[in-house]
């Protein structure tokens, strides 16, 4: 590590030029967890500045301190040279030109897209009253300005897909033409085409003199976009560089060097079919057939929104099928509710942990034990000892939360560790069929690697796994077989490991040109 990089950035750059954002000596703890420790960060106007680090390195916490959502326990924050540490109110930062897109997204679920976009600046008519009729067109105009034409401004935010919500969140931030733009994991839910779209707008803002700060777990995005990179580890600043190779970055982020990207696919699926689906119609699905064998990792590929989500939700009983049969171990079953699915040995791990999977204020142990409570139960009382033993062993296996107490609340964990908690819960059950839906979304490289190995281990135990990921690369490397969905049908089947993601992409779009 060089001399300059170990020095706090705030010291390096004081005086020479007004910084857009400067934080120095920031501490912040949640409960007993020190999320930021004497952390420093500085970014200039007219640059795209990437903030890199593993899950739990303190990036999101730093961003929340910068945008005024939470208070630093110690230290100072300056925006364009003005000390703002005392005012903890995002509205006040917004007035100074700081706009933030959050990783967990901050759209208001009950409001329409238009209301979300125009909440703080709605079109007004006579007497200063809001022109409700004007909301739709005004929102359409804003979306149009950013080339978004597939989102209805009158739709309720809760009804949008995660990718659509992400796009709306980004448009909301960009449209304010902020002087400081902070984007926390903006690309995690986006398809490649949308990433290009976002990159264009980020560059445009930078060229107009704004300071653009973003985080990403995909190194190629940081490489392609960032003018400078700051690396965080364990809640503190490690280095700020103009250029940084991926290998260097990974070493800086993890404090250790890091092996290959994907584990080798060593297992072979068994003969017996675990789950067979015939002619399934549900949501966007129009007649899907599939046969998932024991010990098999079956990938579900295709462009976003081809019915992948419908398939997973229907198999888990969270969505009703219009038509079609589901056979488990050769027996036809009716899955009318999630309860039916769980009883039949089907487990579902969703991408949106906050909304669908976790009880955030509860402890790690409570969360992991939630699906198997009835097993350690005497006359209605949970046998806590048995629970501690069962949870303890699985927590060690998955190395969740770096060996700290399982009494900690789950919301003090980083995103990757939260995802492991959800997986651990299902591992405790005898679930024979695992539906893994984009489980690595927003998870850092090291944790991703852990999850890949875990998926392999689960398959080796004979569990059948249906795997979807928004990163086609993963499907290409992890799966024994890949089904490509297109317009609600299985358009192609590829033998795995496919290896080259391009082949899946090609199969996803092939016939679109003919049509």
């Amino acid at each position, binding site marked *: 590590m060089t001399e300059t990089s170990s020095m706090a950035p705030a010291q390096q750059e004081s005086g020479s030029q007004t910084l857009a954002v400067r934080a120095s000596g920031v501490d912040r703890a949640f409960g007993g967890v020190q999320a930021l420790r004497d952390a420093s960060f500085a970014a200039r106007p007219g640059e795209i500045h990437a903030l890199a680090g593993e899950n739990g390195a303190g990036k999101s916490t730093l961003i929340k301190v910068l945008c005024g959502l939470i208070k630093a326990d110690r230290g100072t924050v300056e925006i364009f040279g003005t000390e703002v540490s005392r005012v903890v109110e995002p509205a006040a930062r917004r007035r100074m030109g700081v706009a933030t897109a*959050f990783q967990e997204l901050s759209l*208001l679920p009950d409001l329409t897209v238009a209301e979300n976009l125009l909440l703080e600046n709605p079109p007004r008519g006579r007497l200063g009253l809001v022109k409700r009729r004007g909301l739709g067109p005004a929102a359409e105009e804003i979306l149009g300005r950013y080339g978004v034409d597939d989102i209805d401004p009158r739709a309720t935010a809760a009804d949008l897909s995660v990718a659509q919500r992400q796009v709306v969140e980004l448009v909301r931030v960009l449209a304010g033409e902020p002087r400081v733009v902070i984007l926390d994991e903006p690309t995690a839910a986006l398809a490649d085409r949308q990433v290009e779209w976002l990159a264009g707008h980020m560059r445009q803002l930078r060229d107009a003199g704004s300071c653009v700060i973003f985080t990403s777990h995909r190194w190629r995005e940081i490489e392609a976009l960032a003018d400078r990179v700051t690396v965080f580890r364990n809640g503190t600043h490690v280095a700020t560089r103009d250029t940084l190779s991926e290998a260097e970055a990974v070493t800086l982020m993890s404090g250790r060097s890091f092996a290959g990207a994907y584990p080798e696919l060593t297992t072979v699926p068994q003969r017996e079919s675990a789950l067979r689906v015939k002619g399934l119609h549900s949501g966007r699905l129009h007649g899907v057939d599939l046969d998932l064998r024991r010990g098999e990792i079956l990938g579900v590929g295709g462009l976003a929104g081809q019915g992948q989500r419908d398939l997973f939700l229907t198999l888990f009983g969270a969505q009703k099928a219009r038509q079609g049969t589901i056979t488990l171990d050769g027996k036809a079953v009716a899955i009318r509710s999630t309860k039916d699915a769980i009883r039949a040995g089907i487990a579902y791990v969703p991408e949106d942990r906050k909304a669908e999977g976790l009880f955030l204020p509860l402890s790690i142990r409570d969360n992991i034990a939630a699906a198997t409570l009835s097993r350690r139960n005497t006359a209605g009382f949970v046998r806590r000892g048995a629970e501690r033993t069962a949870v303890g062993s699985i927590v060690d296996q998955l190395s969740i939360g770096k060996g700290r107490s399982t009494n900690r609340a789950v919301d003090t964990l980083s995103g990757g560790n939260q995802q492991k908690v959800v997986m651990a819960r299902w591992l405790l059950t005898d679930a024979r069929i695992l539906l893994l839906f984009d489980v690595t979304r927003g998870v850092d490289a090291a944790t991703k690697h852990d999850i890949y190995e875990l998926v392999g281990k689960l398959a080796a135990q004979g569990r059948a796994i249906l795997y979807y990921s928004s990163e086609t690369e993963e499907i290409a490397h992890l799966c024994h077989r890949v089904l490509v969905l297109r317009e609600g049908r299985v358009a192609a089947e590829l033998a795995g490991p496919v290896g080259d993601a391009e082949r899946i992409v090609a199969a996803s779009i092939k016939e679109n040109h003919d049509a």
Partner: protein
Amino acid sequence: MREALRRVSIGYLVLAATAVAYLVVYTSRLGRFPTSFDYLSILNTTLPLVFVAIGQSLVVLTGGIDLSVGGMVSVCVAVTATTVSSSVFWLVVVLALGTACGALNGLIVAYGRIAPILTTLATLSIFTGLALRVMPVPGGSIPQEVRLVLTNPATPTGLIWLGLAVVGWLVLRRTRFGMRVYAIGSDEASARAVGVPAAAVKLKVYALSGLCSALAAVFYVSTTTSGDANAGNPFILTSIASVVVGGVAFAGGRGSALGAVAGAVALTLVIDILFFSGIDPLYQSLFQGLFLVVAVLLGTVAALAARRRRQA
């Protein structure tokens, strides 16, 4: 059109159903249709509840609850009945008092970060205590002029609450403040994150609830012509019931003040129906409670069905 129908709040359906029930019971009991006097009496007895329910609906829309409406109505009734007879100027004082009581709630909830249910439970007790201090025994009066303006049979009071409903609708639907109220109820952390000054908005919401309680108290005194330090108690349950029957989501973010108005009228009609059916008034609270449970169940079933349809 179907979309529009689906958006019709459960509150209006419940109101329509109770209105029909009222007409049927009334005509079958008395052998004639209700007269304008009956309508006027309904309007007069409903008006205080309509006020309180509008205030309550604002609070519930932010995801909170205001149990202290009972205490605020009581204390305002007590002050109105003991003072306004001396000078109409006191009317202004009463409205300011109600607003101040509500603002106190708002300060504690928004800046003290204490749960609304605890805060307003405590202030309910404080306000009721104050009311008893001001007016240890029922009594008092209100000047004839004020009474005539507020409950004049020649100027239908119905117009007042129609006007009110419109104002409530305008505030919620057509102002940025209203949009912020929904935003906070939908997800307070996110609302703050996108720049909604949540604390300031909540302070205003609770203050408005206090103002609504004060208005209710003034009307209450002018229709009953006297005051009682416990006058506000029934409004706690009935205002919350009106809001829920009116289709406002208890977790906040969804519903409307108009729905709450419909809920308030329906709830008052239920009492009249019981009266005309000759049911012992002792059972009034029992039947109101039953009505609340049934209406809420209906609302839940309707919401579930709508969701199923949307998913299919």
